[in-house]
């Protein structure tokens, strides 16, 4: 009896192993077949640890992005959501480094549909050889963007640096925490600096260890490991909620209020509430970093801000205060300029697409109006940035400086 049971159990276990192999084979086959756009597949694991930022896009990975809209994505050898390029710029090429969050990274579309690529093509046509380096990364707060620009962006010797930021991120809790990735933290003397506390995080230590390296190798080659990793990240028991992806611009009254107070002229710091004081210090530190970036590269910096013209009508007064405050506090001559990206986008829509609204720029399929930029959205943002960055003048100044 025992022998029969053991042999039955062995056969059952062999069956489990065979099922695992079959599943792995299926996941590989579906990626290389035309059915990748439809059938269930394993999502790419795109990110890895980074000693300066906390995380980064891993180099030379390729796979499928499945959320919101399916796309085949490849990262370059420098870990960019971009075509292959060299650190050293080619001759007579004007380089723009753009950093932002998932909106800039645009995993939902093909790389040639990204606004950075569209800008590159259009600017090359208009002004001659131009490269736009896309440093965008999902979840990148202004602190992460700053760390990324400093650690990776500067290696490309940009002639212009652009930060595409969401205004309410300046008052969020993630910008002041360095537990998982870079954030502005109190250096001890009351000033805020970019912290690297994530290096003490056990997860970071694992991911930078030899075992972590093996884990990433396994994820790159074994699709079932990707499945398990995605499940783990979302919560093993969690089912996706019925709520739709994040709307492009949420009403963020409390954060905007905090920002407005933090940016108010005057007001002694000792009289400010702790959260307002913290926001003011973060903005001060960010401004200092922007200045040092500009000085290091002798290149201008543009802050393209989203969220200054939100859809929520009752926030108009607050956002006007924030917009004015941002311009007064952060812009410094030609060195650092502020662009209201929403305003620029609205301008493009009025002029070129009068029948469309901002909501048409986001989402896919039945989720139109929600989530990330769709190809139309990337086209509009590309035009908006080209119109508002003042490339022509900046390029002239750069060329004049060179000669």
């Amino acid at each position, binding site marked *: 009896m025992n022998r029969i049971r053991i042999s039955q159990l062995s056969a059952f276990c062999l069956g489990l*192993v065979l099922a695992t192999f079959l599943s792995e084979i299926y996941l590989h086959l579906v990626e290389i077949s035309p059915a990748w756009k439809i059938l269930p597949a394993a999502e790419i694991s795109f990110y890895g640890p980074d000693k300066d930022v906390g995380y980064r896009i891993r180099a030379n990975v390729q796979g499928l992005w499945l959320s919101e809209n399916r796309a085949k994505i490849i990262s370059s050898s420098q870990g960019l959501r971009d075509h292959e390029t060299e650190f050293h710029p080619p001759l007579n090429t004007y380089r723009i480094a753009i950093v932002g969050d998932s909106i800039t990274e645009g995993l939902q579309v093909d790389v040639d549909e990204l606004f950075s690529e569209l800008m590159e093509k259009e600017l090359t046509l208009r002004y001659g050889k131009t490269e736009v380096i896309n440093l965008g990364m999902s979840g990148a707060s202004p602190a992460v963007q700053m760390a990324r620009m400093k650690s990776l962006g500067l290696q490309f010797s940009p002639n212009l640096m652009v930060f595409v930021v969401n205004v309410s991120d300046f008052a969020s809790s993630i910008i002041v925490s360095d537990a998982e990735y870079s954030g502005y933290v109190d250096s001890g003397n009351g000033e805020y600096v970019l912290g690297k506390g994530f290096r003490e995080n056990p997860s970071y230590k694992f991911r930078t260890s030899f075992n972590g390296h093996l884990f990433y190798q396994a994820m790159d080659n074994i699709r079932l490991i990707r499945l398990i990793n995605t499940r783990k990240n979302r919560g093993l028991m969690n089912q996706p*909620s019925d709520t739709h992806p994040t709307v492009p611009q949420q009403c963020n009254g409390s954060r905007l209020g905090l920002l407005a107070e933090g940016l108010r002229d005057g007001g002694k710091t000792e009289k400010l509430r702790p959260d307002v004081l913290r926001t003011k210090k973060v903005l001060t530190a960010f401004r200092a970093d922007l200045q040092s970036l500009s000085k290091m590269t002798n290149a201008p910096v543009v802050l393209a801000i989203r969220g200054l013209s939100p859809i929520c009508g009752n926030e108009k007064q607050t956002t006007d205060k924030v917009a004015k405050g941002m311009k007064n506090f952060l812009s410094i001559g030609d060195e650092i300029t502020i662009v209201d990206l929403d305003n620029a986008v609205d301008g493009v829509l009025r002029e070129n697409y009068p029948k469309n609204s901002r909501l048409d720029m986001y989402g896919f*399929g039945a989720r139109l109006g929600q989530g990330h930029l769709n190809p139309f959205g990337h086209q509009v943002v590309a035009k908006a940035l080209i119109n508002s960055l003042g490339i022509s003048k900046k390029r002239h100044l750069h060329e004049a400086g060179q000669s």
Partner: protein
Amino acid sequence: MSFDSPLFLILFVVVFAWLRKFPKHGGMLLLAASIIFYSFAGVMDMTLVIAMVCINYLLSFYVLKGRRWLTLTILTNLAVLAFFKYRHFLLPEASSNQVRDFFNADILIPIGVSFYIFQAIAYQVDLYKGKTQHIRSFWHFSLFILLFPHMMAGPIVRANILEPQVAKAYEGKIKGRRFWIIGLGLCLLGLVKKVGLADSLSPFVDAVFYQGPSDTYTAWLGAILFSFQIYFDFSGYSDIAVGIAYLMGFKLPMNFRQPYLALNPKDFWQRWHITLSTWIRDYLYIPLGGDRVGGVPRHFMVMVVTMGLAGLWHGANWTFVIWGVIWGIYVWGWRFVAPILNQEKVLSWMIHITVVILLWVMFRAENVDRAISFYKGMLGMAEGAYSLKGSSMEMFCTLIGVVLLFFSQLAESKIANYGWIKKHRGLDCPLIWGIMVGLIFWIIILPKQIANPFIYFRF
């Protein structure tokens, strides 16, 4: 809690193991598991179903006393159903065609209410007519209604089929079924249909119906894809429900029999949602007179009213009612062409499947205006914004895919049946069980990108 979730898998494994270990307490264990399973639907839903169990149980003692009590019982059940399901429909906004998008909105009605109330009504009527025994035990009755594999979205099981099995469960006499491959195979088939196919088709179908087709190709393709999405989704659920029940020792009726192989409308309704169509036949169509009472006009009215109500059962939207009414006209009208088409099977199939696909458009559309706009798209007057067109290669592959979808019905009819299993009984072995369990595990582990509840949970 959905059948395709890891939590359900864990719960089921625990229940299955306990049943094998402690069959004596099978009844109470299954009742407890059913309550836990349904409790994930929320306090309101739970309260309602318990209340309906209690009310129907009490009323069953009076139904035997006379027709008036039966009428009261039926009206009570229908009143509850009408309140929870149709109160929005009765509001003035409903007539303006601005009803919410049924297939993309949150599920608002208590889950399973349409199914367990119909099951309760069937029981009360059969009890009155002496077709089933009176379930005197409250615990037996509770499990009869609440048995978790089928209570949320069917199959609607008659008391004379389920009650003896429930009684055996309480007596500790449920035995494992003969071929585990049947139970596991049904679960695997159901998951492949739901997770692998229905959920994969869903984004495209949702996009076409939400934005409207921008060309004729997209309109027809969208309609065909929805026809298969709803089939895979619902039959997948039914397969899993029957498979799970089978593994626990219960035999539930199959709810689908490859409906897209049907050659005519009557054949279709003997293959699609079989337990609902037989319920409609036995408790609505025949009591109204069927085709035996009165002449042709009366038969026409009975058919149209019956199918219209069947459409209404699906949900509070005029699209469902119109869908049902047209089905009634179609079923009734087929008799005039049957003598010719019965000789031409291929032609009969082509005409019939085209009508089915066209009717699914009405079923799926958000409202009647959108349905009409969609039909215009199918006729070359597209007004929408979404296109499924791609490169020539992509469209060729899509065509192959659609052909394969139709052929999947043939494949299913050959393999997924008891006769085939019996013929290949050698496959019922631990190795195959292991493969099936492994595949079920990996399908459930697949992370979902968006929430896609089983379509019939919405009804």
